[in-house]
């Protein structure tokens, strides 16, 4: 792309063509005030704040006001940002916006990181000439996540553009007109869209604010922040975790141009409250007598006597890892117990499906796209995964991907891609092909070219059929369904003709054949020379990382203890009752003399622990998670953990020392364990160097977690002691728990907050990116551990038997994962809790008639020794003979689905 020369205030710049002037100036570090433009949403020219003066040519001295967001950057463009008339106009825009804005900054949740405050200062508006009563509105109750204060609205339209146009929401809209436009729902009620939390960041003022933060409010400049990674699904969205007084106050999106961009899903944003929950384990507790209910706290002085007994050399120890614990903690446990005695802490089924995927990706030569690359896909097949519930941000990325065709069409007509409304107008309903093969309908259907609703086995059949159409060498599959044949042909055709075809699948249906079918399609496309991408959704935040470690499935531990006993069973951040059947866990526990559990929250497993150790959460520790893309990402401590709380790997390190007295290497800090891991396991070899180590300094300083405006350092603990407490040390990272330190432009993986002079809101992010919506300066954080292998040869999976027999009185029960409720940790968050459904079953009307249950009625489901009271939800999109059971909701027993189930009248 050849650059174009433009002149801004008499200075020449060479810039990328095709952009608008506003984003160009922002990436050049030239501040232009603006409201309605958002890099992810494009330009609409509504607020008129980004006005600049444009000159026809060098001889033009008068020029005219143009909106920089609507002005394409072209060769020879001459503009002035500083022009007095342009400046005066921008100030006037602010003045008129402020005519109705309440002067409630001191009590406004947005204060301190308010884009409107910044813009008011930036334009210089400071005197109020409007002397009439202000317009007022009624506010709405928008549910547990979002507060609404419409009087603060400056009508930039960003909220509805994000919510409706970008995220596909329906229940937030703009109502009325003139200076009484209203942004809200048609009536009070919970915002339904799964991405509603982004309104908090998209809104330039305090209309939409974080209700969970309000419950323990802290002024924004008083927060201590850390770069973090979301722990609530396998996508690894980057977050900023913020602390005050030892509690986690909120989660915001941390920009990562390759992963989540500007946004987060509501589970990721609001699931954090578990960190502050009263069920948190904060002390070391010991059960003096097996099966006793009573536990006692273990004092620090008693640690060595307590631990020595458990980990002495002669003890036979089993370690059970976890897909929600960091790579380091899992690796530490594996090192403690040895590879032979290390178990992944997931069921055989999950283990083998995850392994199948990770091994395929390691050897296949096929690329797993980043979320950003998902947005670039031009033909997509979703095979058996309810993305909106299991990987919400992929669903959001797909909404953008299907619009690629509209950018092509717009470009042909000379409409720049950032000119949002005309691009949408021109495209109308035209979308890139997206095919969805799932069990029941969801909100993505509306953007799909075609959807296929059937049983897991039929979905797998479809997948195998697509592979067969693409490559005759792919295994044959018997099909009686002509519709399936037709749609398989269509899908194959679309994928084959695409330049960036994408297959998305996963393991949430618990069906091996779906995974095999998806991998076969990828193989077939690749063998046809296609540049296919494959995104396999995994269940948890470190499912992929765990899968890259040696180890065995949980059931293997059970089998091996049939004729022996374990001295010490150590369980890392894992509630085994969510993994395998209750009986199996009980058997394992019976065979264990001592059960040691490291975890954050009290659960069924911790209640069985003989020794319970408080493990720091993601917010109180540093560690690495590997997302489903194979991207390893480091999260950093937001909370300085105190007293007996410790990172799991640090606890385990103590045990290693006990067990192996001769060991000379001690993991003093995270970098040490990362180094061991990198040296020991080839797949993790890149982990060592991808992010600065703890010794990293900028201008001899650590990177500050707190803004320079952080207040109360000397006073905040005065109720305990009046002397200023000693600064907490973080030996694991180059970040410091202080406002004294490097404030600006840390390396991209170490950004704890966004701040640039003049920019206190999240818009300060511009200064951290190479261009708006681009990459972080210095590269997006994270390192991909899995890259396509050149010249890889893949073989096909054989379909096996795809027959299903259904009986009239029995249904095949398939799992229905929920964005709110199916994830263990976020389900403890009090805001998320309000969104969790009671256990339910979805089935079609005809099947409900058979069991004579009406929509909303309760029934009893008999399933694998369990009898569950479930609410019946009628959904005619699910095929006859199949019923979907809400999976992993709090309080529900583990059920290994799909399986057969029977309904009884209650």
């Amino acid at each position: 792309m050849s650059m174009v020369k433009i002149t801004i205030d008499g200075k020449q710049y060479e810039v990328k063509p095709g952009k608008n002037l506003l984003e160009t100036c922002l990436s050049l570090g030239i501040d232009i005030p603006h409201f309605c433009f958002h890099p992810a949403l494009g330009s609409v020219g509504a607020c008129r704040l980004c006005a600049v003066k444009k000159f026809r040519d060098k001889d033009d001295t008068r020029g005219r006001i143009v909106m920089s967001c609507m002005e394409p950057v072209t060769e020879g463009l001459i503009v002035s940002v500083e022009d007095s008339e342009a400046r005066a106009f921008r100030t006037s825009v602010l003045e008129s916006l402020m005519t109705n804005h309440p002067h409630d900054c001191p009590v406004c949740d947005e204060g301190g990181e308010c884009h409107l405050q910044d813009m008011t200062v930036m334009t210089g508006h400071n005197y109020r000439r409007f002397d009439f009563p202000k317009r007022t509105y009624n506010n709405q109750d928008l549910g547990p996540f979002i507060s609404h204060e419409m009087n603060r609205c400056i009508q930039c339209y960003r909220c509805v553009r994000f919510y409706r146009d970008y995220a596909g929401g329906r229940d937030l809209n703009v109502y009325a007109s003139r200076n009484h436009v209203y942004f809200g729902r048609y009536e009070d009620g919970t915002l339904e869209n799964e991405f509603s939390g982004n309104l908090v960041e998209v809104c330039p003022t305090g209309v939409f604010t974080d209700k969970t933060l309000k419950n323990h409010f802290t002024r924004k400049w008083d927060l201590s922040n850390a770069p973090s990674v979301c722990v609530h699904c396998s996508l690894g969205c980057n977050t900023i975790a913020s602390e005050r007084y030892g509690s986690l106050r909120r989660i915001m999106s941390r920009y990562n141009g390759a992963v989540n961009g500007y946004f987060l899903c509501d589970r990721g944003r609001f699931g954090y409250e578990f960190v502050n929950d009263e069920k948190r384990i904060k002390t070391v507790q010991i059960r003096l007598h097996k099966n006793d209910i009573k536990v006692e706290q273990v004092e620090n002085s008693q640690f060595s006597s307590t631990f020595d007994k458990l980990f002495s050399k002669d003890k036979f120890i089993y370690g059970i890892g976890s897909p929600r614990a960091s790579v380091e903690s899992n690796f530490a446990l594996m090192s403690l117990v040895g590879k032979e005695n290390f178990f992944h802490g997931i069921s055989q089924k999950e283990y083998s499906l995850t392994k199948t995927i990770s091994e395929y990706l390691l050897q296949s030569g096929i690329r797993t796209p980043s979320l950003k690359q998902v947005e670039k896909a031009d033909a997509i097949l979703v095979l058996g995964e309810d993305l909106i519930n299991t990987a919400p941000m992929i669903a959001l990325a797909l909404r953008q991907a299907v619009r690629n065709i509209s950018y092509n069409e717009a470009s042909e007509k000379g409409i720049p891609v950032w000119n949002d409304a005309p691009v949408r107008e021109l495209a109308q309903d035209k979308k890139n092909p997206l095919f969805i093969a799932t069990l029941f309908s969801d909100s993505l259907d509306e953007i799909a070219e075609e959807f296929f609703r059937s049983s897991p086995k039929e979905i797998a059949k479809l997948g195998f059929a697509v592979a067969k159409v693409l490559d005759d060498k792919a295994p044959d599959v018997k099909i009686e369904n002509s519709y399936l044949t037709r749609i398989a042909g269509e899908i194959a055709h679309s994928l084959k003709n695409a330049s960036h075809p994408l297959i998305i699948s996963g393991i949430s249906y618990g069906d091996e054949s779906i995974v095999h079918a998806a991998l076969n399609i990828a193989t077939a496309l690749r063998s046809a020379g296609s540049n296919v991408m494959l995104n396999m959704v995994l269940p948890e935040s470190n499912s992929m990382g765990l899968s890259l470690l040696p180890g065995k499935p949980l059931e293997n531990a059970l089998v091996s203890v049939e004729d022996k006993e374990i001295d010490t069973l150590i369980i890392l951040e894992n509630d085994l009752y969510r993994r395998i059947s209750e009986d199996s866990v009980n058997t394992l526990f019976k065979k264990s003399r001592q059960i040691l559990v490291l975890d954050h929250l009290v659960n069924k497993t911790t209640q069985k622990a003989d020794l319970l150790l408080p493990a720091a959460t993601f917010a109180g520790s540093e560690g690495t998670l590997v997302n489903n893309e194979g991207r390893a990402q480091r999260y950093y401590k937001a909370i300085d953990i105190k007293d007996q709380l410790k990172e799991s790997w640090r606890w385990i390190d103590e045990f290693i020392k006990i067990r192996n007295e001769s060991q000379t290497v001690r993991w003093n800090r995270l970098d040490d364990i990362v180094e061991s891991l990198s040296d020991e396991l080839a797949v993790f070899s890149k982990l060592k160097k991808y992010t600065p180590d703890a010794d990293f300094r900028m201008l001899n300083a650590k990177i500050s977690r707190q803004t320079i405006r952080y207040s109360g350092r000397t006073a905040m603990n005065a109720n305990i002691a009046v002397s200023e407490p000693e600064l907490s040390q973080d030996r694991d990272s180059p970040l410091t728990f202080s406002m004294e330190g490097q404030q600006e432009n840390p390396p991209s993986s170490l950004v704890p907050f966004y701040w640039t002079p003049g920019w206190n809101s999240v818009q300060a992010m511009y200064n951290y990116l190479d261009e708006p919506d681009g990459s972080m300066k210095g590269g997006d954080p994270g390192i991909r551990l899995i890259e396509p292998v050149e010249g890889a040869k893949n073989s096909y999976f054989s379909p096996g038997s795809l027959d299903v027999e259904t009986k009239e009185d029995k249904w095949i029960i398939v799992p229905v994962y929920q964005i709110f409720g199916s994830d263990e940790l976020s389900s403890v968050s009090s805001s998320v809790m309000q969104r969790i459904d009671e256990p339910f079953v979805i089935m079609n009307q005809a099947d409900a008639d058979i069991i004579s249950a009406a929509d909303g009625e309760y029934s009893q489901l008999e399933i694998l020794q369990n009898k569950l009271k479930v609410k019946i939800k009628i959904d005619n999109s699910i095929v006859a003979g199949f019923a979907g059971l809400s999976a992993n909701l709090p309080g529900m027993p583990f059920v290994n689905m799909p399986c057969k189930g029977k309904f009884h009248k209650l």
Partner: protein
Amino acid sequence: MERPLTKHIKPGSVSLNMKDYIQLGGYGNLQKALKNIAPAEVTALVKASNLLGRGGAGFPTGVKWSLIPMDGDKSTPKYLVCNADEMEPGTFKDRYLLEGNPHQLIEGMIISAYAIQAGKAYIFLRWAYKKAEKILREAIADAYKSGYLGKNILGSGFNLDLYVHSSAGRYMCGEETALLNSLEGKRAMPRTKPPFPAISGLFGRPTVVNNVETLSWISHIVEHGAEWFKGLSLTPTGGTKLFGVSGRVKNPGTWELPLGISMRELLEEHAGGMTPGHKFRGALPGGASTDFLIEDHLDVKLDFSTVAAAGSRLGTGTMIVLDDKTCPVAFIHNVEKFFALESCGWCTPCREGLPWVEKMLASIEEGTGKMEYLDLLNFNAKFMGPGNTFCAHAPGAAEPLQSGLKYFHDDFVKHITDKKCPWR
């Protein structure tokens, strides 16, 4: 004096029906165009006639048509939309044509659609024009029955469907892109330009939007040619124009007159001069969104360029007269209140500026105004000016305000110093 558009309209009597229209030679020009003139030639003819859009902006109609891509994919639909959302205060000329001679419009639309090869056409009608709606629906039904609409019109192979869409009633719908949004079922908010409707209009497809009066001309131009059209006006623009006058004049109404007659002639000869006891103080020459002209301007020739030179706009050509018994502040307040209420709420200067203006004017009129409001009114008028806003709504609203402040400055001051309205 020729009155091609209105000669067959008799005020107070029923509209010209299909039978009468045919008897007068109606649809003959359609036949002529479909048989003998290629689409591009129709456009060339209209271009040559220099027919300027009669909706208010005065953009050359032929040029607008020629922006429609004609060599593109034949399967891409194209649209013709008639803007009959006549909501400019003081304007009632389109209604006269719609109710009086619907087939003149329909024939014009069919020829126009043929010129741009549009397969579908819409008449976007003001919500309040119930009578016109009924007349149009009947006329369209008759045109279908006679084979002037539908498939293979008059054996030419050209197909056209014509629909009447009654608006939900917003001033903003008269803005052509807001009209398109409204027609699509969206909020009536204007669109950014470029792209212009000729590239991405209704449903994102090439679209021409023309005013009722403009489209009513087309069959006449096909019949008589461009030179004839040009000869109809006193100034070089071409054509006659429907003018109207409202206010305290003896004979308010609408008349078809050559472009270029003077304001004085219109007021005195056609509107009959001021009613006894009332003196002329000024007028908004082309609807509420145009600058005041005052006594000094009475000899200004009423044409697009000449009115513009006098500091106003010909607009819709329908004049609202301000007399000496009417308070100019109240007059302007009334106008600005209308514009404030009709703002769509999209861009800041319009949404926030107009209510501020309205509040200050109300305050001055009530006797509670402050002297600094005069500066603030001027400031807002400039703030809402052309180029500063998303569409022409606020700049239009600023026109009577800025000129009113200039011409009636003393009246404003008197309101403020006397703390009351001198007319009350």
